[in-house]
């Protein structure tokens, strides 16, 4: 620990304390709810009793969605790819309004009708099949552990670089904080800390981008220097046009723009808001905030090329710019932003994984009545937390890709069963199975043998194949039972 920068660390510690306070504040609600029987507890623990207001919904959606990828990996790649990568990142422009408008009120109405607290709950009622529920839940746990591990690695690297403590110390400090506040406070703690984190991210991003532009002598100066370095850095095709090709970059609209609807940690938020006003306000705030953050952070990465010339890996561009531009104590404040991005993603993923274990796997195999629910929930939360923490000790490289891989798997699993189940009466169990199996199967196939089918990102073709499989199989097999249709579409 010799040489640790305590002046950077101190503001971060204050921030951690604030997060703990929110966690323990929410614990009050959780412990009250722990006296409820069976599902009553989970309604508080997993969807916060469906009480989220507009601002909180917007912030938690943005904060959940924007992860280490957007704050560390994304700017890191923009460092080497220039404006082309900022351009690619802006494929996420619709995320703020798209998810909430498409799942929208219908998902919220249906969730209340069937008393769903996880997305898998929705699938369970809609398709009435235990194997499907188990398949989906197990893949949730699997993919989320991978995704959370990548996030922990990113955060620990950031802390390591900025505060100059060993990787293991940084990881322990960070992971314990997230795991503890999430476990004690549940969904309420997650969305409240997300809101705090959203605000912190926004302020820190604003300060950073202004300081970076000023330090580089204005936008024109920076763009000129980039262009002089390599004209590709200011072209949409990037320095390596075969890598950032038109088809590939555009296909990110499918992966990070539209298909995000299929991410369970995002869809859960569409079940937890209070009323239409919350939804409407969330769409506006969410779009504004996410667009600002995406643009500014990636631009910072691209501009960082001019500001800091000698860094070993792109992932370090944000901490490098921060420590170059700011006095140490202020650097701590600004760095809270990216850390917040990671925290707010991991906490939701942890909660969804816990929901999968307790509500979707355990409740399906055993009886979930009585007052044991709270205890079993805590035990499984701790178990997942510990596994993820342990996996992060041996960090893999290139977290953007790891993260995208997990997202792609989750999207292949959830997208069509959720969307078609919600909007298409003919959608049935066999179709859902067909779509999940062909989706994940063809994704693994393409990823291994043909990573860019038709020049596009790997996810696109598997998504189309799994849509086709869903529709064809659904038409070849009997309609869903009338009772299901009535439950979902009736009054």
């Amino acid at each position: 620990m010799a040489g640790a920068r305590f002046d950077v660390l101190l503001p971060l510690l204050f921030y951690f304390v604030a997060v703990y306070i929110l966690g323990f504040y929410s614990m009050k609600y959780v412990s009250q709810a722990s006296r409820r029987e069976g599902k009553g507890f989970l309604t508080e623990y997993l969807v916060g009793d469906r009480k989220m207001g507009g601002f909180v919904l917007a912030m938690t959606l943005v904060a959940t969605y924007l992860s280490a990828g957007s704050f560390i990996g994304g700017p890191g790649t923009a460092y080497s790819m220039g404006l082309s990568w900022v351009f690619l990142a802006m494929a996420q422009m619709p995320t703020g309004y798209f998810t909430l408008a498409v799942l929208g009120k219908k998902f919220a109405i249906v969730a209340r009708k069937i008393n769903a607290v996880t997305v898998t709950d929705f699938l369970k009622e809609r398709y009435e099949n235990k194997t499907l529920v188990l398949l989906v839940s197990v893949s949730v746990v699997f993919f989320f552990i991978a995704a959370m591990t990548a996030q922990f690695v990113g955060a620990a690297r950031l802390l390591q670089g900025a505060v100059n403590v060993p990787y293991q110390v940084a990881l322990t400090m960070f992971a314990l904080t997230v795991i503890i506040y999430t476990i004690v406070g549940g969904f309420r703690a997650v969305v409240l800390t997300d809101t705090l984190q959203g605000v912190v991210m926004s302020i820190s991003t604003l300060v950073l981008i202004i300081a970076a532009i000023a330090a580089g002598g204005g936008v024109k100066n920076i763009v000129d220097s980039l262009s002089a370095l390599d004209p590709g850095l200011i072209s949409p095709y990037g320095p390596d046009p075969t890598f950032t090709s038109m088809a590939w970059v555009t296909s990110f609209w499918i992966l990070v723009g539209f298909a995000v609807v299929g991410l369970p940690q995002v869809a859960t938020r569409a079940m937890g808001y209070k009323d239409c006003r919350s939804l409407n306000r969330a769409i506006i705030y969410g779009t504004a905030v996410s667009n600002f953050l995406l643009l500014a952070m990636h631009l910072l990465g691209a501009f960082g090329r001019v500001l800091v010339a000698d860094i070993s890996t792109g992932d370090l561009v944000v901490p490098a710019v921060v420590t170059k531009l700011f006095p140490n104590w202020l650097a701590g404040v600004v760095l809270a932003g990216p850390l917040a991005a990671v925290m707010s993603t991991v906490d939701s993923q942890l909660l969804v994984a816990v929901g999968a274990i307790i509500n979707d796997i355990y409740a399906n195999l055993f009886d979930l009545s009585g007052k044991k629910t709270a205890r079993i929930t805590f035990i499984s939360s701790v178990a997942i937390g510990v596994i993820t923490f342990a996996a992060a000790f041996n960090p893999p490289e290139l977290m953007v890709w790891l993260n995208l891989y997990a997202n792609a798997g989750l999207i292949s699993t959830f997208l069509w069963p959720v969307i078609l189940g919600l909007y298409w009466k003919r959608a049935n169990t066999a179709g859902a199975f067909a779509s999940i199996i062909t989706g994940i199967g063809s994704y693994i196939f393409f990823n291994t043998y043909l990573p860019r089918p038709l020049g596009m990102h790997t996810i696109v073709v598997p998504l189309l194949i799994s849509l086709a499989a869903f529709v064809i199989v659904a038409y070849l097999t009997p309609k869903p039972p009338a009772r299901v249709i009535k439950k979902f579409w009736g009054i």
Partner: protein
Amino acid sequence: MKEKTTAEDVDFVEDPRYRQCNKEALMGLGLGLLNLLWWFAWGYGAGSQSVQNYSYILGFPLWFFMSCIVGAVLFTVLAAVMVKKYFQDMPLGPLDEKKQEGGR
């Protein structure tokens, strides 16, 4: 989306709120596609020429300024307009058989 009336044999009254819900979902989808079109047309329309011939606004290359910066602002505004003008309030909880408000 794929709202086919394949369940005629089921005798029930459909939740009256869903018509508006479906409309709002389609609007979200439409706005998303428009967003993609704007981004693509400006990005590749103005960005595909050789870098020496680029024009600039406020220091940014024109393609980038229009597709990413103006695009972000424009579609935030459009999302706000969509929500304020076309989205309707409705109760989200279960409806009584009798009173059917919301809908449209």
